[in-house]
């Protein structure tokens, strides 16, 4: 009986270990879990498979977030609802935009054709920062700092987990560079529908052409279509790449008229459970398509 009482009193005396953190983007969810481990309970608001450009939290989601001490977003304008969400949360809750301190790639007015969708062309900043693996390494550090700020007692755990996660990302970045090196330099030209791969192209030395226009119906002007076809022909680009969540109609049209083939789809919006698998899948498909 005494043992049972002692056990119960110990249980009562133990502080609650879990730090509740809400995540608005699937890639962020994975990173919070990597860094927080068992010390953090993740409230998944943005789930794998969602349309990150159209998602908005519902009343039920806001209710779930009430438990969270921190709400973590991808940032760079991807979650256009953040201002409204801020008004729905309490003062003691913090909204963290991971992308805020990650270097931005701006989309100039002239280059608006390169934006992923009309909405995300507004601020001129490309929100798809995660396609540069080194940026994801920064994200790990940002999340580590925020978790430590909210739960100082877990500092050592977060630091150790973050170190391990960063080491994995350094390896992944090396792997990407190694794979890209197998593509002849003159063939490193990535043609996709939307401008979701700007960070990837800059980080790994690709020229980029994103053919999809800004019109809401996703149509592309005849002049732009002809320009893209001519470019592919003149540079003898072997493959154009559709995206897993976008209509491949325009790209098929371009491929048909330029003689290029349509590659395996790339994952653009990060709406997946595993960051590493997404990068590996994208790079494998790009290499297979361009090494021809």
């Amino acid at each position, binding site marked *: 009986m005494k043992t049972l009482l002692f056990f119960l009193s110990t249980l009562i005396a133990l502080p609650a270990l879990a730090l509740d953190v809400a995540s608005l983007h699937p890639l962020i969810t994975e990173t919070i879990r990597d860094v927080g481990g068992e010390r953090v309970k993740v409230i998944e608001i943005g789930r794998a498979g969602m349309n990150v450009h159209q998602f908005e939290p519902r009343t039920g989601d806001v209710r779930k977030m009430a438990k969270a001490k921190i709400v973590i977003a991808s940032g760079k304008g991807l979650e256009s609802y953040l201002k409204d969400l801020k008004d729905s949360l309490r003062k003691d809750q913090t909204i963290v935009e991971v992308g*805020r301190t990650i270097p931005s790639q701006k989309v100039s007015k002239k280059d608006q054709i390169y934006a992923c969708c009309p909405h995300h062309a507004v601020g001129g900043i490309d929100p798809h920062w995660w396609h540069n693996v080194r940026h994801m390494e920064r994200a790990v550090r940002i999340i580590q700092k925020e978790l430590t700020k909210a739960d100082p007692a877990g500092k050592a755990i977060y630091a150790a987990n973050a170190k391990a996660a960063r080491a994995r990302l350094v390896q992944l970045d090396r792997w990407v560079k190694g794979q890209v090196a197998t593509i002849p330099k003159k063939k490193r030209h990535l043609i996709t529908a939307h401008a979701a791969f700007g960070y990837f192209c800059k980080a790994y030395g690709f020229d980029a052409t994103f053919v999809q226009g800004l019109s809401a119906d996703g149509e592309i002007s005849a002049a732009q279509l002809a320009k893209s076809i001519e470019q592919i022909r003149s540079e003898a680009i072997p493959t154009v790449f559709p995206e897993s969540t976008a209509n491949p109609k325009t790209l098929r049209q371009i491929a048909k008229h330029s003689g290029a083939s349509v590659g395996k789809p790339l994952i653009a919006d990060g709406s997946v459970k595993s960051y590493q698998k997404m990068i590996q899948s994208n790079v494998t498909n790009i290499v297979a398509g361009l090494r021809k």
Partner: protein
Amino acid sequence: MTSSPVLATLLPLVSLALLGWPLAGVIRQEPAQQQATEESLEDSPIRSADLIIRSAHPFTSVKVTIGETSWTFDPEEDLKEILFPYSADQSSVTLHIEVQWPGSTPETALLLELQPEGLENRSHTIWGEIEIAEEVTFDWNSSE
């Protein structure tokens, strides 16, 4: 018996006040905290950065100095959070680096990388043995 006009007015008012009391707390609730914007980051004269080192062989110590401030890495450390002065006009920072390796270490390499908030990574590799000091300037003016 009819109630007085004062009472007839006050009673609904008191009821309303009682109902409104808990609601006032909700209305007056201050919104969640949000970080400063990217624009305010660009204007800041001080940048926060992660200073990261990756060494091919274990080192004895690494000391990095920017202006009057120095940071010393112990052999187990690979990252330090630093602050350094930065202006958009100058867009550069000069680091003085001193590295010491144990005597038995062959010629080796140490990569030093700066990851400042809002700016692209900059890195420099130092080659040497036993002891070496170098100065490197990281510049964000050139096209990235």
